[in-house]
C-alpha cells in the first residue's frame, strides 16, 4: 500500500504540500523536488513490511509523567522582550500586512 502511495506523488501533490507548508516554490523547484520526494518516500516505504500487529506507537522514550504545577502566574510582564526580535513591532504588537480590506 505504501509503495503505491509513494509512486503517486506528482508535481501537483508536491505543489499542494509546498502550499500546506507555506513555502513559495517556482514550478521548476516543484519539478526538481518530485524525484527527491519519490526517492525518499520509496526508501521509507520498506517500513510497511514490518509486522506491527498489537504494537502501540511510541509516545515517550523514557518513562516520564507530565508534571502539573500550581495554576499561578510564573512569568510575564516582559512585553518589550517578547517584541524585541519582531521584524515589524508596532504599538506594542506584532505588525503584519493588512488582512482585512
Amino acid at each position: 500500500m505504501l509503495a503505491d502511495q509513494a509512486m503517486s506523488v506528482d508535481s501537483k501533490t508536491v505543489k499542494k504540500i509546498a502550499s500546506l507548508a507555506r513555502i513559495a516554490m517556482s514550478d521548476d523547484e516543484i519539478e526538481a523536488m518530485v524525484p527527491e520526494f519519490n526517492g525518499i518516500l520509496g526508501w521509507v516505504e520498506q517500513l510497511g513490511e514490518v509486522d506491527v500487529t498489537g504494537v502501540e506507537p511510541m509516545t515517550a522514550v523514557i518513562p516520564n509523567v507530565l508534571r502539573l504545577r500550581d495554576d499561578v502566574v510564573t512569568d510575564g510582564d516582559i512585553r518589550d522582550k517578547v517584541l524585541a526580535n519582531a521584524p515589524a513591532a508596532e504599538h506594542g504588537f506584532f505588525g503584519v500586512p493588512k488582512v482585512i480590506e
Partner: protein
Amino acid sequence: MTDLTDLGIADIRNGVRAGTFSAREVATAFNANVAAAKALNAFLIDTPEHALAAADAIDAKRAAGEDLPIMAGVPIGMKDLFCTVGVEARSASKILNGFKPTYESTVSQKLWDAGAGMLGKLNMDQFAMGSSNETSAFGNVISPWRRNDGGNAALAPGGSSGGSAAAVSARLCPGATGTDTGGSIRQPAAFTGISGIKPTYGRCSRWGVIAFASSLDQAGPMARDVRDCAIMLEAMSGFDPKDSTSLDLPVPHWEAGLSSNLTGKRVGIPKEYRLDGMDAEVAAVWDKGIEWLRDAGAEIVDVSLPHTRHALPAYYIIAPAEASSNLARYDGVRYGQRNLPDGAGLQDMYAATRAAGFGHEVKRRIMIGTYVLSAGFYDAYYTQAQKVRTLIARDFERVWDSCDLLLAPTAPSAAFALGQESDDPIAMYLNDVFAVPASLAGLPAMSVPGGLDSQGLPLGLQIIGKPLDEQGVLNAGLAIEERAGFTARPAQWW
C-alpha cells in the same frame, strides 16, 4: 610554558584552581586560536569578550579564596542553536537572521554557573539537519583533518555539530556543546578524532535550544577525552521545570565515578550492525574495540537487535514530521527575517519568508514531514513509524537481559570529501545508520576515537548504554581510550 590550548577541560580547571595559570591567560590563548582559524569556518560569531569576562570572574573568585566550580576558567564553543542572551542565534539558517535571544538556554546557563565562558557560536548544519555541515547557510565547516595522500581535499567534519567537532579537534576550544537528534554529536566526533556523548533523553534541558525534532533532540558535550566529556556533561545536565520532558533526577558525579575496570560488565556486539559490504577498516577497529573491552575485564557476548535496519527509515519519517511542526513557527512575524513582496498579504508573506529563509534540505524535510502528517497518510507513515520505534526500543530493552552495554562503530566510514555525498540525500542519511537506533530509543551513547584508517583519518567507536547509565558508557569509553592510545591530531594548515 605549555601551550594552554593543548590542555583539555580537566587540566585547565585544575591549573586555574591551583593557580598555575590564570583563567584570563587561558581565555586569551583560545581567543587567539579562534581568531586565527577563519579558514575552518567553525565559528559563526566570535565572543572573545564573553570568554574574558567569565575568566575574570573566576580569577576574582580565586583571589577571594572562594571554591571554584567544576568548569572554572574553561572557555567553550557554543553550537549556534543554543540561545544565549544578546548573541545572535540562527541555527545556521538565514531565517533567523538578526535574532538575538532575550533569554538564556538552561544548558548554557548551567555552563556559565559552572565557571565556563563562551568563545563564540559554532557553525552547524542548518537546523541540525545534515551529516556533513554542508547545509549551513553560512558556508561549510572545513575539517582540520586531511588525508595523508598529499591531495589536501577539503573534508567534511561531519554533522550536524560540525563546527563543534572541528573547533575541538583544531584546539580552538577544549570543549563544545553539541546536540544529537540522530547522531549529530557522535558522527562528527568520530570524523574528527574527538569524544562526544549524547546522554539519556531528558538529562539535558531542551529549553532555549532551537528545536529540530523534540522527541529526539538531546544536548551533550564534545571534548578531547572521556574525562572532559564527563565533567562537561555533569555541568550541562539536571532537572529543568521549563522542559516538560526533563528528568527530575539528581545529576550523578560522573567524573568522580570514572573507572576503566570493566570486570563484571557484559558488552554486547549486535550482529545486525555488521552490514554486508562493511568498510574493512571500520570492521577492524570494531574488532580492536572488542579486544580492548575484553582486556578491561568485560565479558563479550553476541547479541541481536532484530529491527535495526528499520531504524533509519523510521527516523526519516519521525524527525521530518516533528521538524515540520517545530519549524512552523518561522513565519516572519515574531523573530528573524521577513520577506514581504510588494502588495503581499499575510499568507504570501509567510510563504515568501520561508522560501527565502530556509535552505534546500530544511525545505525538503519540512515538506516530507508535512506529507507524512497529512490527512490520509498519517497512519500509513507516521503511526507506522512510531510503532516501529516501539519495536526498536523493545529490542534494546530485551538485549539488556544479556548485556550491560553495546559496542559498535560510530559511522560506516571515515570522513568524506565535501561535496562527495551531497547529491544523494539517502546516501547522506546512511551516515547515521549506526547512530539513529540509540536516538530512537532515547539511550545514552558515546563516540570515542578508535584509531586512524589507512588514509590517516580518525575512526570512532560507539558505546550504547542502558537508560540513565551514562557512567557505564563513560567507563567503557575510558577503557577504550586508555588502550587505543589515540594521540593523533590534525597538522595545522589553517
